[in-house]
């Protein structure tokens, strides 16, 4: 499985090579990428496009599972199969050509079908970081999905027909949203950082209105007036231009929020996984619990201080001391959370290196932006008893919605299961296929208790493409799907929850929880 290469001498070379992406997800994100092992089921055009965008940024290793032989049709649409590969194992050729992209990445392949693998070696999939399943019929997808769901391994399912696509996946792990603070533009010259000005104005406001905090527009306007009154005046009594005051007034709306814990974080702190820790709890929930204990203890109801400060018009020394104050408090808060996490590890009988101080530092810094995304299993999605029929029905009533595409794609899947061919594949059967697909879609909707959609032109359009796969459309979805995988691997940025539909005719897309 994945093991990192020798680190020290290569380090600088690696950093250089991946510089532009490390600026996005940091060294800690890159090292998670180095350690991961990604599995791709089926090396179709879409499949290889996904791996392309994972091999280039340097994942540790990949494995392709594909029992198919390469056909003429594969070669025409797939950049990672060459004309000499017809008749050879698709897994083998794609692995070879993908490895050429990046010598740091190890690749191997298994030229067996998923069905065979699940039967013969059921534990095969247990050690992957992320599994991608492309063009897998429902009957094979369901057992694979159940297996991975029980192991807690993210599964990303992708499919691309003609100009329209669909990409549902059950999101599993918790994600830390690591979007950085926007740094503000700075203006030329003044003396007092606006943070100080705001605090002063706020003190004055509290003097006038004891126990209250400016929230409504009128109250904020009063605060702005206080700031204006604080400005220096010229001999005529007119206020002078002072850039830092302008900054403070502008910041009133954004910065004078009551310091409360955002609801997304409160929900996480009150989550049963956070409250009821066991020795099987993962480090995320243990750290979250440490955070909760901190908030309820020395944090005094607040999250750790972030320790960063936007740039503002100010003298160097004043700015630096302000920054130091924020930084020191943040450091103290991190230490508290870390101590509590270590305490929890002892209680749970877990090794102390399960959570390092560095982890806690990242965690605390971004604790305002914590998000947990829980997906749904594909089994729940397709079973009419658990399907999200309400969402499907209400979306279908909206003429702008992309939901009809989802329903038709489910219909095409069933068409394929029943006839072993995509609708519209042959000119002779084009018209009958349109009629058949329409009746399948209506039957599917009837099972969900929804009346027919009457989107005949869309059904016609799908049949017109006859299941053909456009390279450019696959490449688009491949790029998105690869990035979703990287989000899981690095635990940064928020993943899709849980079905993404893209219409390449208009370049519009939507996300549905299904």
């Amino acid at each position, binding site marked *: 499985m994945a093991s990192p290469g020798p680190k020290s001498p290569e380090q600088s070379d690696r950093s250089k090579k991946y510089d*532009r992406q490390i*600026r996005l997800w940091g060294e800690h994100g890159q090292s998670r990428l180095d350690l991961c092992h990604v599995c791709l089921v089926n090396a179709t055009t879409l499949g290889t496009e996904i791996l392309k965008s994972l091999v*280039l940024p340097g994942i540790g290793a990949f494995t392709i599972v594909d029992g198919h032989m390469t056909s003429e049709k594969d070669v025409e649409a797939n950049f990672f199969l060459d004309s000499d590969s017809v008749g050879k194992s698709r897994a083998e050729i794609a692995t070879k050509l993908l490895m050429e992209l990046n010598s740091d990445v190890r690749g191997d392949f298994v030229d067996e079908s998923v069905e065979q693998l699940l039967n013969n070696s059921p534990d095969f999939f247990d050690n992957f970081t992320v599994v991608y399943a492309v063009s897998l019929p429902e009957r094979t997808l369901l057992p694979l999905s159940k297996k991975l769901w029980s192991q807690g391994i993210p599964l990303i399912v992708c499919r691309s027909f003609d100009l329209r696509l669909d990409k549902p996946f059950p999101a599993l792990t918790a994600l830390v949203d690591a979007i950085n603070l926007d740094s503000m533009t700075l203006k*030329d*010259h003044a003396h007092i950082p606006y943070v100080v000005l705001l605090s002063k104005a706020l003190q004055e406001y509290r003097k006038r209105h004891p126990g209250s905090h400016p929230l409504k527009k009128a109250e904020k306007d009063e605060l702005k007036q206080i700031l204006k009154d604080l400005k220096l005046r010229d001999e005529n009594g007119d206020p002078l231009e002072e850039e830092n005051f302008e900054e403070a007034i502008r910041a009133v709306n954004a910065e004078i929020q009551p310091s409360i814990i955002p609801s997304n974080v409160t929900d996480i702190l009150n989550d049963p996984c956070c409250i009821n820790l066991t020795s099987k709890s993962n480090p995320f929930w243990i750290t979250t619990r440490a955070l909760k204990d901190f908030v309820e203890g020395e944090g005094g109801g607040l999250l750790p201080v972030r320790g960063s400060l936007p740039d503002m018009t100010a003298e160097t020394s004043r700015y630096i001391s302000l920054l130091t104050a924020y930084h020191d408090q943040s450091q103290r808060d991190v230490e508290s959370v870390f101590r509590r996490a270590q305490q929890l590890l002892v209680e749970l009988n877990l090794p102390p290196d399960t959570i390092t101080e560095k982890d806690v530092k990242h965690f605390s810094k971004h604790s305002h932006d914590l998000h947990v995304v829980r997906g749904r299993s594909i089994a729940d999605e397709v079973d009419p008893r658990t399907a999200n029929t309400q969402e499907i029905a209400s979306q279908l009533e909206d003429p702008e919605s992309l939901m009809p595409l989802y329903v038709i794609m489910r219909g095409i899947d069933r068409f394929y299961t029943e006839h072993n061919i995509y609708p519209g594949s042959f000119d002779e059967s084009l018209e009958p296929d349109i009629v058949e697909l329409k009746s399948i879609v209506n039957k599917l909707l009837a099972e969900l208790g929804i009346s027919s959609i009457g989107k005949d032109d869309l059904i016609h359009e799908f049949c017109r493409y006859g299941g*053909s796969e456009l390279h450019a459309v696959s490449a*688009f979805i491949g*790029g998105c799907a690869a990035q979703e995988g990287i989000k899981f691997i690095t635990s940064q940025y928020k993943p899709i929850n849980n079905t*993404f539909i893209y219409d390449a005719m208009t370049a519009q897309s939507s996300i549905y929880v299904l």
Partner: protein
Amino acid sequence: MPWKRPLSGLYFSGWSVSRFEVMSGSVEMEVQSDDSPMPAAPKSWMRNAMERSGPFCLPDFDHRPGALHSVLGQIQVQFLFRRNDIGRSKAEVAANFINNRIPGVNVTPHFCKIQDKDEDFYRQFHVVVCGLDSVPARRWMNGMLHSLIEYDDDNTPITGTNIPLVDGGTEGLKGNARVILTGTSACIECTLGLYPPQVTYPLCTIANTPRLPEHCIEYVKIIQWPKENPYQCEIDGDDPAHLCWIHEKSVERASHFGITGVDYKLVQGVVKNIIPAVASTNASIAAVCANEVFKLATGVCKPLNDYVVLNQSDGVYTFAFANEKREDCLVCGRKANILNIKEDAKLEELISKLCQDDGARMKNPGLTTNVNGKQMTLYIATVPSIERQTRPNLKKTLTELGLVNGAEIVVADETSPMSMTFKLNFI
């Protein structure tokens, strides 16, 4: 449809500033010309859609197969390069790779600046795809393609002279793509406001009250380097010795002010203005562009109308919308350009107006005019000897220079391949 004609060539321009440094870029894909023998059979993977008409086709779609493999190329080219290609022209490597991997496609590389090619060069293509990394280069290409349009008596672009421009760009997890049907849809110049102004730090902050590590690096870059000139040359962001020197001096300056956080990586980022980039976003945006070229080339589906943004940081978000054409656009507007200005304004005020107005945003304009039938150079900054001669004009008022209400001045700037004429309107 005015933009539809048989495809004889596709042109991919460079991803990098001024050279054809590719990203599949700088690649011309010669496929077949109008009078070539029967086009090659379409690829079977698209045969169905190509041969059948459908509800979302262009109205006069004529099911013409062929010309199809021209769209196989992508504007994202990282995946075409290998370690041992370092040091070779990106255009050549990309062209060779595509030619070898996909039989039947003929890619011709051009290793040069986009500005090195003339109108005749660009006129031979049916679609131009840009993966440029700077706004001025985009404006130049936009201006070039608009200059090729010929109009009929009704002021409608003559079919075939209007070459569509497909443009894409990315930064980190964000990206955008657009289709410009030249002469019909909003052009790059109509929507200059979409590009944020570049982040710059005021000089006095850098010099007197630095607070961020970036301020210290900027100081060394723009003040200390020219003063001490340690290597007797301009800064080369790729020379490790230069970066080391800047790093060392920046650390010194930062510690003097008690600022932390200057490291080598940040120095590199500031000096070279590095924009974060990731393969997946590039792949997706390149795919959107390729798909649009495919639609334009085959008429299989209506093209994008006309702009789409992509953001992959919170789920995957896309939003498509149509930009509005500016009637007074300097490039695609068919009106004379009026420049409203005070009668007693100085020439330097007029120049700064040209640089700051959202409609113009020029970089370094050169101005000439005609006074009493005589050609007169008002100011040209790019040629040192002329700059010295014309510098005194900057402080003169327009009247002192002999300019009257309604006078025409001709302006040349790096943001456009042609010069533009402005009519003065005194207010």
